[in-house]
């Protein structure tokens, strides 16, 4: 059986990618096929990659404070194009923005200090892998 495919993406201009890379590697070691987009992706580029790769989940990392605009745009384009893939958001996200992101339809939001196994568990649950 092929491994479920996951996109890890950096949205916007921010270059801080330590978290994205650590998560990409942890998920790869946990048995997923991980595609890391690299930095400076636009919402439409990420969705394009997700469609092409037939991804089961999109993990987005943002530390620049522009998560509301960029994730908002991402969710909007996904709705317009009828793409239905769970989205996880990680980064420097103030608590009140987390609630707003969840209202937009984001599956979960993780801030700094979240244990990797917690993220691996939720990813497994969301993509239906055992």
């Amino acid at each position: 059986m092929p491994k479920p495919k996951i996109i890890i993406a950096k949205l916007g201009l921010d270059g801080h990618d330590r978290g994205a890379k650590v998560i990409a590697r942890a998920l790869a070691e946990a048995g997923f096929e991980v595609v890391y987009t690299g930095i400076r992706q636009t919402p439409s580029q990420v969705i394009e990659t997700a469609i092409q790769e037939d991804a089961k989940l999109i993990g987005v990392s943002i530390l620049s404070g522009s998560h509301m605009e960029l994730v908002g745009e991402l969710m909007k384009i996904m709705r317009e194009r009828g793409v239905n893939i769970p989205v996880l958001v990680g980064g420097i996200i103030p608590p009140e923005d987390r609630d707003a992101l969840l209202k937009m339809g984001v599956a979960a939001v993780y801030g700094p200090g979240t244990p990797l196994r917690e993220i691996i568990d939720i990813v497994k649950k969301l993509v239906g892998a055992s």
Partner: protein
Amino acid sequence: MGNTEKIKEKYDEWVREFLLPTLKKIPEWRKFATLFGIDIKPLYTPLDVRDDYLSTLGFPGEYPFTRGIYPSMYRSRLWTFREYSGFGSPEDTNRRYKFLISQGQTGLSVAFDLPTQLGLDPDHELAYPEVGKVGVSIPEVASMSILFDNIDIRKITTSFTINATAAEILAMYITVAESRGIDKAVLDGTIQNDILKEFIARNLYIYPPLHSMRYTTDIIAYTSKNLPKWHPISISGYHFREAGATAVQELAFTLADAIEYTNWVINRWKMNVDDFASGLSFFFAATTNLFEEVAKFRAARRLYARIMRERFGANKSESMKMKFHVQTSGAALTAQQPEVNIIRTTIQALAAVLGGAQSLHVNAYDEALALPTEKSVKLALRVQQVIAYESGVIDSIDPLGGSYYIEWLTDIIEEETMKIIDYVDRLGGMTKAVEIGYPQRAIAESAYQYQRMVEEGKISIIGVNMFREEREPNIELHRVDPVSRERSIRRVREVRENRDREAWERAIRELRRTADGENENVFPYILNAIRARATIGEVSGVLRDVWGEYRPPSIY
């Protein structure tokens, strides 16, 4: 029997008769090692220290500068209190600067937003969501002038955290000085201008590595002749550490970068090392592991002095002194129990001061959640002030010098660092190493190993893997005023409409011609374009056209 033999005999006896029997009853509660993986012994004695004081330590202000670069250090002059700050529009940031100065800050440090750092005007499609977010938006000269409104730029030193657009920002600062009737030769400050570090860790680059190296080193050549007090580069290890590097990797890649820049300036401009080396400055991180950090700073000074003298034949003492700024580690801050960060940053700041830093930024406790508020940044500044004026750690120079443990740690960091520098030499220097992704891979590996150690509890982080609390932090966070973005866009459009069109066209044409060739220094042409009111997006647009944009492989 000599003294050393006596100590050795007594030491063995102590281990046999006291230490081991005790450990049998009460075993050590964890494994003790440096964060870069070397075992730490329970006790250090004169047996662990090289017995050549004059050549390895010497005196402050004297080669190899292990104990400090100035003879009197903080007894004559404290380090510069320089909180990194910027957000929204130049008006907002100017207010924050005046607040910080009123609270006792002694130097400024400008945080630019991502569009400014990547050479995109605020009305560019990709720029729009990020205008004013992680720093201030400065796309043209008028904004730079507002940023320093009613601040005396002859007196205050300013550090600009800018790399891929360092030339444009320096050109704006020079233009503002000229408009105020100030000779650029008196300007004192720093532009970060360290592009290798961007390729390795921070990721805010525009052009491919070779063109970027030309851009960076052309600035160094220009300022060494025209702005004698200016520091045209701050060679930075900070971002390596934040990306996950160990202390040794931080130091090794920084020094390997310094070697690369020095080689480039010497080869491209046929300059003597003593003609520009005094302008080189450095930037490191301080994490919470106090002694490891102190030893790192001491080893850094000694290694740099040796490299400049032995490898490059520097003669002037000024060319061998490593001047450095320290920022406490942002990655070490926790979103959990954020007030605990005040304790962490205090220890980190102490490491910087015990390590002999020339300039210091202490992070605010809320920065794992957002940019700092006025309250949190003031507290960060107070941390520096308590260390400076109350703690007494500045009373004597290099107070930890001579500690058996610190000297051993300084030696071991020096040795381990040299191994990596030698390896980079074998790869052909840092530009080549970056092109094949060596430092990027090494840092990604360390970041992953670090995270695993945290998860396994081998590294303790209060609030994260020890003494956790389930309650959410309840603190007031800084918000960027959304009006500032529109203000920035309006201003840049006005500039484009109202400038002298002919002068602007001429300057842009000349810039393109120079960038297309190889022999001329590109900086004076960038300066002329900025004087003709070209925007940052236009100047870097020309260079993007001619030099291309870099697309790196994605490594994780």
